[in-house]
């Protein structure tokens, strides 16, 4: 699971998380008790609105620009975000 989440965990963290998650999931099993036959899942709070209510005119806005966009990069370089090499030549 930690691999799926891209999380490096220490051995001590793995032990603690296993115990915590078991306790939490035990509580989550309560959901099995309630009948949800025919209930539509609710993914979002929705209100009455026209189908296009969330659309706006497609007008261009000035972009951030690469200098500002890269200002928080741990390793910027030549106008890009730099990451470790993934393809060997």
């Amino acid at each position: 699971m930690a691999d799926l989440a891209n999380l490096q965990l220490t051995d001590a963290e793995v032990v603690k998380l296993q115990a915590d998650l078991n306790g939490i999931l035990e509580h989550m099993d309560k959901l099995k008790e309630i009948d949800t036959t025919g209930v539509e899942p609710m993914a979002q709070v929705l209100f009455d609105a026209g189908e296009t209510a969330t659309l706006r005119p497609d007008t261009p806005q000035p972009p951030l620009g690469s200098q500002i966009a890269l200002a928080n990069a741990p390793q910027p370089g030549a106008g890009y975000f730099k990451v470790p090499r993934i393809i060997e030549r």
Partner: protein
Amino acid sequence: MDIPSLTIDAVREGLLSRRFSATELAAEALRFAEAGNAATNAYLHFSPERALDAAARVDRQIAQGEQLGRLAGVPIAVKDVIVTKGVRTTCGSRMLANYIPPYDATAVVRVEQAGGLIIGKTNCDEFAMGSSTENSAFGPVRNPVAPDRVPGGSSGGSAAAVAQGTAVVALGSDTGGSIRQPASFCGVVGVTPTYGRVSRYGLTAFASSLDHIGPFARSVKDAATLLAVMAGRDPCDSTSAEAPVPDYSALLDGQVKGLKLGLPREYLKQLTSETGDLIQAAVDVYRRLGCEVREISLPATDYAIASYYIIATAEASSNLARYDGVRYTFRSEHSQTLSDMYRMTRGEGFGAECKRRIMLGTYVLSAGYYDAYYLKAQKVRALIARDFANAFQEVDAIVAPVSPFPAFRLGEKVDDPVAMYLSDIFTITGSLAGIPCMSVPCGTTAGGLPVGMQLLTGHFAETTMFRLADAYEQTQRG
């Protein structure tokens, strides 16, 4: 000037009568907040340049006889999950310890357009995940009312700042109770508006279908004014609502006679006696004011915690995937390969509660468990929303507790995540339904700890909620 007793109206009156200038007020408020911070750790950093610039604009408007904004000269604190251009925004996380946002949240823009002075950014649980502000990477916040106790969370810094008096009002964020619970623990007013009432643009995403920005204040009227300034459609947030924004604070006319209030029987049975007694006393006040009180039922309540912690962690695990060492300031120094960079950056950058929620969220979304957990939780969410919709056929508002108990001691619950999650029961139901809810101080325990009463109404019925809160508040004054 007596900073801790200021209200929005008092600031305006002081400015217009030339008793103080906005610049003098900003300087004094900053001094006062910086001096008071040793006792609470409510602020992570201050923004003097920004506050003084805004104050200078207000003073120019006064000198030129221009119309002042509704928050002119008001010292305001902003939770550090809400981005501020050029002012560090950490989300209480080591991951973003040095992050300087390139833009302002819409709520921040609106507050400053109305003349507000943003004096600093407040401490919070990491990425707003927690109920005590003990999950901040920058140390816990102490409750100004009882320094050995937590201020609640996750917006504990904003609640503490307003309670301590270092800010007149503050911005917080609420996903499952993160405004209402700290407001109740610190004895101030805290409001979670209807989902979509305030733009989320610039609110660092935790669980997007549940996240709200809302106000803290020392009076219902000030909270109502701040909400009216922040609310309204924003093209930058497609989930922000088109509905017109009433002038809430102008509608506080004390008219609550004949309103029907519901008491959910599923909530009242779970209360410690002291909190329960204070809620009942508040309900008696409403009876005396001419409200009709009846018991109602919200039958899906028992399943709310499970539903919430599945949906919120699932969304969080997706939202927090962006912190991978590429764009957001922090990258592990120990990694050689790309995959190690992701894993080690996240392992070193996130605190324990974030990791717990990312793991839980990843689990409930993973193949084989998705239907049993995530989809089931969304169906239960629909049932909870239906419970409220049914209740509001019968009553105008619901009166409920905010937390099963008052502020607990620092360290008391940090080792028991399940107990911490279970204590959110009265706030997460309203969050799941997306309805407006608020916490109003309703007295203190024998030990002197504040207790909050929660008021909930139907979607976009904030006016009724504020009117009820204000009418109660008036009976408690003087």
